[in-house]
């Protein structure tokens, strides 16, 4: 009789732990420094040399930030959410639709158009930054959330990515639906789109994160206070609060942490999106 036993694994201490554990602690330090600082009193934060752990733990900074009439965080959260969600919705729609069309349909000039879109991926965004601003000014869309939504409706990389996914959809599936008399948009919506589910999740999360964290373009377009997004208001607040680090730290925690925790939970999709874009160019 043969006995199958699990291969006996000798305990082998991996030297990597000696590097990884201290390195990850160092990597966390800036976060920790900010979070600890947000619980210190103003007197303690100005102390030289500084303390590491708060000696006198206080929630007062959060109370002051949350009741600061010049910093209605709810409005800025709303602005950021409107822009990010609208852009995710429209970019997912256009990317999946055009990716599907480029993968599954033949039409005149298709190749040229696809190469044109691919070449757009190579153009750095700052090339259209100045004229983009001038166009928005002419349309009266400066200091309007639409100014960050309208020009973002199409994403070249998204079209490229979804084309890759759509290529894998079997033609038989689409033709069967056509024989059954389904309309083309219905086929896209009900048959092709569900097949691209993983791409929707991955690219949707990635788009949301980029929009949520975006700085330069919102900084240019949104110069009036109440239309600003969270990253811009955070720098505005920290510039106004020079010397009051404890308040800026509390505001930073309130701006960064809630969504960072959400991102942590959907990390899998974001990592997948990054590796897709990194590995496949």
């Amino acid at each position: 009789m043969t006995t199958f036993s699990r291969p006996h694994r000798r305990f082998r201490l991996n030297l990597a732990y000696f590097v990884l554990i201290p390195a990850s602690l160092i990597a966390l330090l800036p976060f920790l420094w900010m979070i600890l600082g947000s619980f210190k009193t103003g007197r303690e934060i100005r102390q030289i040399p500084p303390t590491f752990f708060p000696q006198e733990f206080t929630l007062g900074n959060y109370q002051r930030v949350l009741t600061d009439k010049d910093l209605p965080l709810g409005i800025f959260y709303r602005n950021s959410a409107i822009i990010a969600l609208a852009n995710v919705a429209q970019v997912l729609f256009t990317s999946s639709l055009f990716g599907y069309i480029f993968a599954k349909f033949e039409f005149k000039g298709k190749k040229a158009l696809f190469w044109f879109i691919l070449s757009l991926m190579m153009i750095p965004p700052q090339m259209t930054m100045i004229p983009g601003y001038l166009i928005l000014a002419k349309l009266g869309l400066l200091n309007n959330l639409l100014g960050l939504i309208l020009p973002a409706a199409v994403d070249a990389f998204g079209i490229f990515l979804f084309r890759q996914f759509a290529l894998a959809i079997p033609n038989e599936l689409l033709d069967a639906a056509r024989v059954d008399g389904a309309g083309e948009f219905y086929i896209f919506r009900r048959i092709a789109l569900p097949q691209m589910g993983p791409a929707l999740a991955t690219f949707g999360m990635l788009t949301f994160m980029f929009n949520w964290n975006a700085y330069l373009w919102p900084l240019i377009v949104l110069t009036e206070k109440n239309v600003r997004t969270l990253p811009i208001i955070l720098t505005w607040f920290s510039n106004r609060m020079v010397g009051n680090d404890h308040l800026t730290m509390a505001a930073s925690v309130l701006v960064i942490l809630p969504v960072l925790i959400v991102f942590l939970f959907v990390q899998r999709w974001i990592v997948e999106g990054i590796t897709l874009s990194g590995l496949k160019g």
Partner: protein
Amino acid sequence: MALSTWPGWQRLFSGRDSAKKRFVALAIIPLLLFMVFWTVFPLLWGSALAFFDYSPRRMGGFLGFGGDNPFVGLQNFQKMLYSSPDAPLEVQQFHTGVKTTLLFVTLVVPLNLLVTLPLAFMIESVNKRVKGIFRTLFFLPVLAPSVGVAIMWGYVFHPQRGLLNAILGGVTGKLVAINWTGDPSLVVAGIPVALFAVIVAYLWQDLGYNMVIFIAALQGIPQTIKDAALIDGANSWQLLTRIVIPLLMPTILLTAILTMISAFQVFDIVQVMTDGGPQGQTQVLLLHIYNYAFRYQKMGWAAAVSIVMFLMILSISLLQNRLLNTELEY
């Protein structure tokens, strides 16, 4: 004449595949219009701006051209070549911008790979159960807004209340008050310390990207290849240097180029941490463009610098395409 009797319309919307054609046309025509309005037109307008002394504050003719915004031909580009010490301020700042950006990129790319590659190897080597924890910890800064990253690191480098000086003070037993991001006289090996500080914050946020790409690439190497090498008597060092790294080479090259392109366009962290200071030591090109276009309203000059920057990035992208065409199969 009704539109439906026009021959082109007939060709488009009748015949065997009319439903397909209509679907494609209804989707592609808006796409074309969008591209023309939000990409082609801005690119042309932006390029044209570079040949004018343009400011949105002044009156001009069509699209703001002419009038008080005169055509200056290649003047903006010619100015960039002035090298005399009495060159106009924007030219001097442009030169610092190019130098700073190149310095930034040449430091960031190798430093990034020197950290992310070993990090990926180490994370792949540890127990499956803790692998995810380490990956998450190093990936966390990628998820944070770069503005927040810059503010956090500002408090690490703060001259009086910063964490770094506190640690150094604790180690040496003396009061340390180094102004890491604000003292222009601090220069090490020709590189301003402020630039190093910005690079540390930038790397800290950026490392996670390449790390997860390398981890995915490592997981993509078939176990059979590694097993074959081990059966042939290779030790783990040989496995790494003779098998794993050569197989990773295409990914390493690609990520190096992607890292280079994004480092060229650094803005957020620099603008928030130092705003180009001290004395322009961290004034990268995109910050120069932003300042001239939106702070000083000299958009003609800023557009010309944008074109130069675009050409620099384009040459890297073309290099990338060359490299991508040589694919490795296994």
